[in-house]
């Protein structure tokens, strides 16, 4: 293949050149706004270090609670922490927020996710901004072979994400109990939906699909491969809606934090059978 001259075919060189007449830029723009909003809000919420707990509701941004400072307004008590009180070795220049100990793991899962890669390569890196829209010029394009080589370790982020699903379901179950009494509140439903949406997103992961059965060439060779074929088919159903669950779960995890935060601050009232 030869490099074409500027006018051949009627194509102009230069970033974002296209003859498309539809509004191709709406998708990347919405992605940019959606991701930016989430990043700004989640960073702000993580920096607060307070109002992440109410009754038995724990914000998913702060789960699991490894250490807690019980003196914080709207924080959890010591019994909720895996390892007790806030550590003395924590550097003073870093805000004392339990969210900092956990957010990197779901963050890594989303950052290396095959769907999100498409979304941010288009909306943030402009490689390309849209289909048949000229990509940002790069002197020596490397794709995912050089600086982005770490994207190949998405499956390790997946392993952590699977662990987080168990924790978030555990939080959701606990949200149906308060002071040992079974009940239900709007927050219980919010946290249960959060764990469910995150499960649909995580279990539809491309790496998970590969590991459960996609890597096999023969699905019928033995009992194990037949079982894995069944799993692969189920994961495929979720995988076909991976983008949908990526966005729903992203929105809902943010909303779950907003809900717990505003209830904890007394701005929203949580309707519940516990009556407080």
């Amino acid at each position, binding site marked *: 293949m030869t490099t*074409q001259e500027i006018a*051949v075919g009627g194509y102009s060189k230069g970033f974002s050149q296209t003859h498309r007449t539809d509004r191709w830029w709406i998708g990347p723009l919405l992605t940019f706004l959606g991701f930016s909003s989430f990043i700004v809000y989640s960073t702000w919420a993580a920096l607060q270090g307070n109002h992440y707990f109410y009754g038995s509701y724990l914000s998913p941004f702060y789960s699991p609670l490894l250490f807690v400072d019980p003196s914080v307004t709207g924080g959890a008590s010591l019994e909720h922490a895996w390892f007790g009180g806030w550590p003395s070795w924590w550097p003073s220049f870093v805000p004392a927020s339990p969210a900092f100990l956990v957010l990197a793991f779901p963050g890594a899962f989303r950052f290396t996710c095959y769907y999100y890669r498409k979304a941010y390569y288009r909306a943030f890196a402009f490689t390309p901004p849209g289909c048949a829209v000229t990509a940002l010029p790069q002197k020596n*394009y490397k794709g*995912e072979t050089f600086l982005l080589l770490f994207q190949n*370790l998405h499956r390790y982020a997946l392993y952590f994400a699977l662990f987080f699903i168990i924790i978030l379901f555990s939080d959701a179950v606990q949200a149906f109990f308060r002071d040992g009494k079974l009940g239900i509140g709007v927050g219980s439903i919010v946290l249960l939906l959060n764990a469910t949406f995150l499960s649909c997103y995580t279990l539809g992961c491309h790496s998970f699909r590969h590991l459960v059965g996609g890597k096999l060439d023969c699905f*019928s060779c033995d009992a194990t491969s037949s079982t894995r074929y069944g799993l692969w088919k189920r994961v495929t159903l979720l995988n076909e809606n991976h983008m949908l669950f990526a966005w729903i779960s992203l929105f809902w995890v943010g909303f779950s934090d907003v809900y717990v935060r505003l209830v904890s601050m007394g701005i929203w009232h949580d309707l519940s059978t516990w009556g407080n």
Partner: protein
Amino acid sequence: MAKRQFKIWRGNKNGGEFANYQTEIEPGMVVLDAIHSIQAESAGDLAVRWNCKAGKCGSCSMEINGKPRLSCMTRMNSLPANETVTLQPLKTFPVIKDLVTDVSWNYRQKEKIQPLKPKPRDADGNYRMMQEDVDRIQEFRKCIECFLCQDVCHVLRDQDQANNFVGPRFMIYLASLEMHPLDTADRIPTIRKEFGSGLCNITRCCTEVCPEHINITDNGIIPLKERVVDRFYDPVMWVKRKFFGV
């Protein structure tokens, strides 16, 4: 009947320009019909490649209003009625004349790929495959080699990586071989190195333009990238292979 305006690129590998045409559009016409009308009425020397006119031969690929599409499958009433229709040759391949490009680079890529190397036949002299083992690769066999996916892939289109990346069409061809239940060849090292799987940043434009609706990215390229990860990047897999031989 309504008259529609067309802006068609006319020229060859040395250059050219857009020329304006108009023709009457009847209900049910596709873009290729309109091109044929223009040929008959006002541009007898307009070059366009076509064959089946049924979306199965992949010959009439071009860019219609900036989008890579088959002209025989693009209905005129699917294009905005008040807009001039812009027709261009595929951007990624060298122009021969007007709307016709030289896609022979693709055939040279295919020649580089190791063909199916089947395992020995069963004792009765037959090959046996179960339906669930071939369902997955049947999807890839729908490919009509229109090369719209190659055209839209920014790695080939904008990043000048034709020497390092085979493109989505051949990634799914490789997937159809690698996932084949009878195949015994190992193409994973070449998929990574010679065929450049790491250059694909999975922005899915190939899937979006495929007229056969093959899920190129999710079912072909990503599974291949994951197989490359198994072999080259996953430390646990490396240990398993090294010490347990699996």
